[in-house]
C-alpha cells in the first residue's frame, strides 16, 4: 500500500445514464466528477443528493446505467469492494469501540492490526488533532471530534474517492470552518476525488472547486464554484440560495433537520 505523503491520487467518478427509483420518485443521473478535485453537490431537499452518493458508495444499486470509478464499472460491487470512503452526517462510529479501534477498522474489518497498521493509525490520529484520545469512547468526544475520528479512518483506509454526506451539518459555524479546513488540508496532501454534499453555499465556496447542482432528481447544472457564485449559475440555483446570492447568504436555508 503506497501510504505516506503522496497517497493514492484521485480517480474520476462517472455516473453513466444511471436511473434509480424508490416508490414514486424517479432519479436520473448522467454526470462526471473530475479526478482529484473537490466537487460540492448542492440542491434542494429531496433533489437526490444523498441518493447520488449512495449510488457511488454502493448502498443503492442503479435500476439501469453504470457507475464507473477510475474507468472501472463498479455497479455490481458491494460497498466494501469499491475504492471509496464515506463520512455520514452521524453514526460514523461504533459506540462501544474506542477511538483507536474505530479508526483501525478502516485498515482491517476484523481488527487484526499489525505494528505498521498501528503506526499509521497513530499518524492519522495526530494528523486530525486527536493525539492522546486513542482510548476514548465516542460518547466521551464532542460532535466535532467524532467527525475527526471518521476523517482519521478515511486517512488509514486511503481510498482514492471520498464521499462526504453533510458530515458537518450538525456542528456550529466556527467548528464547521475548522473541519472544512481540515478536509481541504487532507485533500491537498492526498489529492483524492471528493464529492461533498452540503446545503451551505459558504461551505461550497470555501473548499469546493466545482459545483454540481441537482434539482428534481437530476443534474440541473455543473460548473466551477467561482462561476456559480459569481451569478453564472442557473436560475434554479439562484432561487435555491436565495436573493442577493453571493453576499448575504443565510446560513440556515433549507438546513436538513438533524
Amino acid at each position: 500500500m503506497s501510504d505516506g505523503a503522496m497517497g493514492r491520487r484521485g480517480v474520476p467518478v462517472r455516473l453513466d445514464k444511471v436511473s434509480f427509483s424508490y416508490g414514486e420518485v424517479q432519479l436520473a443521473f448522467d454526470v462526471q466528477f473530475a479526478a482529484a478535485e473537490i466537487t460540492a453537490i448542492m440542491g434542494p431537499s429531496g433533489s437526490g443528493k444523498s441518493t447520488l452518493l449512495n449510488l457511488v458508495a454502493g448502498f443503492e444499486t442503479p435500476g439501469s446505467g453504470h457507475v464507473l470509478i477510475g474507468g472501472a464499472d463498479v455497479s455490481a460491487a458491494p460497498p466494501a469492494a469499491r475504492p471509496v470512503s464515506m463520512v455520514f452526517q452521524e453514526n460514523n462510529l461504533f459506540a462501544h469501540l474506542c477511538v483507536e479501534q474505530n479508526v483501525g477498522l478502516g485498515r482491517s474489518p476484523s481488527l487484526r492490526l499489525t505494528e505498521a497498521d498501528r503506526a499509521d493509525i497513530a499518524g492519522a490520529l495526530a494528523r486530525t488533532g486527536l493525539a492522546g484520545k486513542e482510548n476514548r469512547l465516542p460518547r466521551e468526544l464532542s460532535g466535532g471530534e467524532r467527525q475527526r475520528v471518521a476523517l482519521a479512518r478515511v486517512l488509514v483506509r486511503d481510498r482514492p474517492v471520498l464521499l462526504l454526506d453533510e458530515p458537518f451539518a450538525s456542528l456550529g459555524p466556527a467548528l464547521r470552518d475548522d473541519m472544512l479546513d481540515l478536509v481541504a488540508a487532507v485533500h491537498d496532501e492526498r489529492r483524492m476525488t471528493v464529492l461533498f454534499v452540503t446545503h451551505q453555499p459558504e461551505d461550497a465556496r470555501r473548499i469546493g472547486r466545482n459545483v454540481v447542482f441537482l434539482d428534481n432528481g437530476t443534474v440541473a447544472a455543473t460548473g466551477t464554484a467561482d462561476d456559480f457564485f459569481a451569478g453564472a449559475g442557473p436560475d434554479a440555483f439562484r432561487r435555491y440560495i436565495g436573493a442577493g446570492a453571493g453576499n448575504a447568504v443565510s446560513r440556515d436555508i433549507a438546513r436538513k433537520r438533524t
Partner: protein
Amino acid sequence: MAPARPTDPRVAAGVIALAAITLLIGGALAGLLVEGAHDFSGAWAAFDAYLLRVVRFTLWQASLSTLLSVVPALFVARALSRHPRFLGRGSILRLFAVPLALPAIVAALGILALYGRAGYFAGLFSTIGGQGWPGIYGLSGILVAHVFFNLPLATRLFLEALQTIPADQWRLASQLGMAAPPAFRLIEWPTLRAALPGVAGLVFMLCITSFTIVLTLGGGPAATTLEVGIYQALRFDFDPARAVALTMLQIAVTFIVVLALTRLGANVVGDTNLPVAPRRYLSVNGTEAVFNAGLIMLALLFVVGPMAATVAAGLGADLGRLAGEATVRQATFTSAVLAFLSALLSVMLSLALTMARRALALSRRAGARTLLEHATDTGAGFVLVVPPIVIGAGWFLLLRHAGDVFAIAPVMVVTVNAVMAMPFALRAVRPAYDAASERHERLCAQLGISGWARLRLVDWPSLRRPLATAFAFAMALSLGDLGVIALFGSDSVQTLPYLLLARMGSYRTADAAGLALLLGLVCLALVLAADWLGREKARNV
C-alpha cells in the same frame, strides 16, 4: 440489470429457524390429523355433551376472569396515576410485576395456602360463615388465581396508557379548575377506553389458555377447560379420539380470539416495563385521596396475600430434608438443564428471526414484503394460536406408535418451551437489533465488516444485554412451566413443577409448599435479572 449480491447469512439463519418452528408445530398438527383420520368416527363421536360443557366452561371462566381483572384494574390504575408520587409507589408497581414472574403452580399453591380448606384464612372464614370452610376449589379458585395474575398486569398496562396523556392536558385541566369526575370523563376515560380492548383481549387470551391454574384449582369434571380436558384424555382416560376433538376445538377457539385481538390492534404479549411517573399538575381533594388509598391498599393486599402465604408455608416445610432428598435434587438438576437449553434455543431462534427480518427489510427498500419477510416478522405469533398442550398432544399422538413416548420428554420440554418464550425474547432482542442495525448497517457495508467479525465486533457488544434479558426471561418461563411436562413427565424425567404437582396429588402439602418457595424464588431472581439487564440500555452516540 440485477446486481449479484452475496446471499446474506442472516437470511439463511432465519430460514433455518422458521423451518425448526414449522417442524415443531407441523409435526404436532400431523399427529392430530393422522389420529383423526385413523379414527374419524371416534373423533366425530367425541363431540358430545361433555365436550360442549367443557367449551362453555372454558369461555365462561375466561369471561368472568377478564371482567373481574380488568374492571377493578381500571380504577386501581387511575388511582395510581392520580398520585404520581407517594412513598412506596415504586415498590407497589414492582410488586405488581411479580405475578408475571411467578410460575402458575407456585401461585396456585399460595392461593391454596391462603384460602384453601386448611389455609390461613380457613378459621376466619369458618367463623364468619358459621360452618366449615370448604376451601376454594372449582370456579372460585380459578377466578381468584386468574385475578391474582391479571389484575396487576392490567393495572400496569392501563397505567402505561394513562401516562401517555400529555402533561399539557393536565396543566390545562388544573388551570380550568376541572374536578375529578369531569377530568375522568374528559381526559382519563378516552385514553382508558382506547386501551381497554387490547388489555381485555390479552387477559381473555391468557385465561382461555391457562392450564396449570385450572388443573390444580379446578378440582373436578365440573370445572374443566379444553386444555385440562386434553391432558386428562391423554394421561388418564387414554382416549385419543377425544383428545383430537378437544385439541381441534382449542385451536379453533384460540385462533378466533387471536384474530379478533389482532383486529383490535391488541398486544398479545404481556409487558414487563415499569412505568415511570411524569411530573403531574393536578390537585386531588381529601375524599378522593382516601378513596384512592383504600383502593390501592385492597389491590395490594389481594396481590401480596398469596405471595406472603407462599413464603410462610414454604418456610414451614422441612427444607433441610427436602434439599437432601435424591428425587428433589434430581428434579432440580433436570429443571435447570432443560430450562437452560430451552432458553438458549429460544434466544438463538429469536435472534435468527430478528436478523433475517432486518436483512430482508433492508434489501427490499420499497415495494411489498415477501412471504418470507412476513414469516420472519409474525412467525413466532403462531405459537399463540397453538398452545403448548396442543403441540404436546400432537406429538404425543404421533409418537405413541413409535415406541416410548415418555423418552422424548426432554426434547419436547426444551423445544416447546423455547418456542413459547419466543414472543417475549423477540420483544427484548428485536428493537435492540433493529436500532443497532440502523446505526451500523451502512458503516459495516462500507468497511467490509461481515460474518464472524461483525458478530464479534459489532453485534455482540450491542446485543449482549438484550440477549441476556431474553435468556433470563425465557429460562424463568421454562423453569416454571407445567404444560408439556405434565403430558410427558414420568418417574424417570421429572422437573420441579412436575414433582410439585406429584407431591400435591399425594397430599404432601408441606413438601409442595417448600418446593414452591424454591421455584418461586429462582424464577423471581431470573426475572429481576432480566429486568435489570434490560433497563441498563447501552448508551449510543
